[in-house]
């Protein structure tokens, strides 16, 4: 393998890591910290993508001159819309299912079907695409023969920022402390005066908001259709389970491992065999470490 190919492979692995991490951070929070299986997570990503699509269209119609910066508005908009929608979902559906994980799985699956059909009715069944901003179109060439696309670099930087933000939120703020306390022991947290209802609601909303950001970023590398969310949901769950639930660091490392394996296998075989090989490896590793790679050592 020549050096150029090596660098390109590594880069595509890293950029895939960023995408996987962005997708699974929200899920790691909702599933890992709250123990809620949210099968509609993919549809929340699709919602973020559709919000981005609408923001881009607003820019096209009203401020055609500044279309290049729409993404800077679309990402916060996607975050806010999915954040509040997540809050609504938690209030309307999810809170009735705490402590019934299997029922949560089925109920949120039902929710995801309803959302999919809603997107299909509102936006039509065909794919929507958004033109890439001109300053993200292109690539930098650090060495001859090695091209790094700008939009991928943007995604990597954004993911880093989001991951650092989530880290700070969970380990340096009062709310983060409360969430971690609830994760460790819900009953005792309640006894010491944490409003677990409120924290649950905000945690779920935050997880949804992160899904919205992921969806928004997705529009830069692919098109969106009503079924987009369903394509990614299983991969996202695998990343979280593989990394070890309740461990955000684990999710980050597992995104990296899965992304590198996937891109390497894809390079060596076809993409469908890559997926099968990857799944086999994940199952084998999960067999030896049923709680994921980086599970914290606590008594359950």
């Amino acid at each position, binding site marked *: 393998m020549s050096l150029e190919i090596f660098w390109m492979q590594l880069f595509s692995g890293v950029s895939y890591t960023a995408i996987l991490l962005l997708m699974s951070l929200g899920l790691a929070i909702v599933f890992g910290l709250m123990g809620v*299986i949210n099968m509609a997570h993919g549809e929340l990503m699709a919602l973020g993508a559709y919000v981005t699509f609408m923001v881009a269209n607003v820019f096209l119609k009203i401020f055609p001159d500044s279309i290049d910066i729409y993404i800077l508005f679309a990402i916060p908009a996607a975050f806010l819309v999915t954040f509040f929608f997540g809050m609504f979902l938690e209030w309307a*559906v999810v809170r*009735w*299912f705490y402590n*019934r*994980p*299997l*029922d*949560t*799985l*089925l*109920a949120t*699956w*039902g*929710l*995801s*079907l*309803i*959302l*999919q*059909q809603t997107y*299909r*009715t509102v936006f039509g069944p065909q794919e929507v695409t958004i033109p890439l901003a001109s300053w993200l179109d292109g690539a930098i060439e650090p060495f001859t023969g090695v091209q790094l696309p700008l939009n991928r670099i943007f995604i990597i930087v954004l993911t880093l920022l989001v991951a650092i933000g989530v880290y700070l939120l969970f380990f340096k703020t009062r709310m983060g402390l409360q969430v971690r306390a609830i994760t460790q022991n819900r009953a005792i947290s309640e006894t010491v005066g944490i409003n677990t209802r409120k924290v649950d609601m905000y945690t779920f909303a935050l997880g949804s908001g992160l899904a919205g950001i992921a969806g928004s970023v997705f529009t830069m590398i692919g098109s969106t259709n009503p079924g987009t969310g*369903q394509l990614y949901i*299983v991969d996202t*769950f*695998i990343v979280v*389970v593989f990394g070890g639930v309740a461990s955000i660091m684990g999710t980050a490392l597992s995104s990296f491992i899965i992304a590198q394996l996937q891109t390497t296998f894809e390079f060596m075989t*076809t*993409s*469908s*065999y890559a*997926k*099968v090989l990857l*799944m086999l490896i*994940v*199952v084998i590793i*999960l*067999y030896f470490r*049923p709680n994921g790679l980086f599970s914290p050592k606590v008594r359950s």
Partner: protein
Amino acid sequence: MPKDFLRKSWWVNFAIIFCFLLLLPVISPSFRVPLYGKYLSFAFVALGIVLSWGYCGILSLGQGIFFGIGAYSLAMFLKLEASSPELPDFMVWSSVEQLPLAWEPFHSLAFTLICILVLPVLLAFPFTYMIFKKRVSGVYFSILTLALSLTLTVLIIGSQGGTGGANGITDFSTLQGWDVASDEARIRMYFLMLGLLAVCAVIVQYLVSSRYGKVLIAIRDREDRVRFSGYDTAWIKAATLSVSCVLASIGGAMFVLFTGLITPQLVGAVASVEMIVYAAFGGRTSVLGAVFAAFAVGWLKSALSEEFPQGWLFFLGGLFLLVTAVLPQGLAGLTGLFERKPANESDAK
């Protein structure tokens, strides 16, 4: 004979449902019969889910895999018979020159039947036994099986030449020289299948009302206590799931007989989760509810897709929410007509 199994009310309901299904082909136009057959092929799957999920608490989202094993085995056999001595048409299109080795044994009907009935056990039992031994359970098991059924779809689509890819396998003509596509043959098959379904329903009902069924309920409710009492719960769970997988595989084979096609979408992750709703809607611990719900949901699907194509997913999504939020015992809990006994009453004791 266990007392629950001999209960009169169950047998009365059993007779009502199967008489209704028996009369259906008589009172409806013959072109509907294959559709009824298709709906009822999911009843086999639902029976398995009642056993493994309703009674044993294992929510496998990989039932589509086993549905696919049954369906693809029979489809391969029928395809070989339909196209022999030539190669199946889709192989020619993907320029496969020689019949793949894995296809060779499917010239024999006996091998195909063994595949449908035994292969699910050979695959499911060792794998799930190992997994359950490691005490992977609950949602982790569900997600793992969901991932596996997704992988299978990817694999089938990826190997176009051997499986027909995304288009699946279709265009069958005869089974051992018997024209399976004609109306008359399909009506005859419908009655055969109904007999088989009745036998399966009685077997499952026997299983869940026997001592073994009591152990399953105990595992579902407090697995650790059953383990402390000296039972090998992993073995019991794996065996239960294997039975459930065989039922799914039979359902798959029936599906191919009545629809004349199988595609990867029908065995994938989405289809696998959809199969759960049949059991959940009927009542997850109700054997007869599962049969009835598989038929009812299938019928509703056709009716709704004809009338309002937009409505089906809303309806299905709503159904998932309904059966989890307000009707955890499904139709059986609603009417009290079907079987509902073990679930709640054992909790109350």
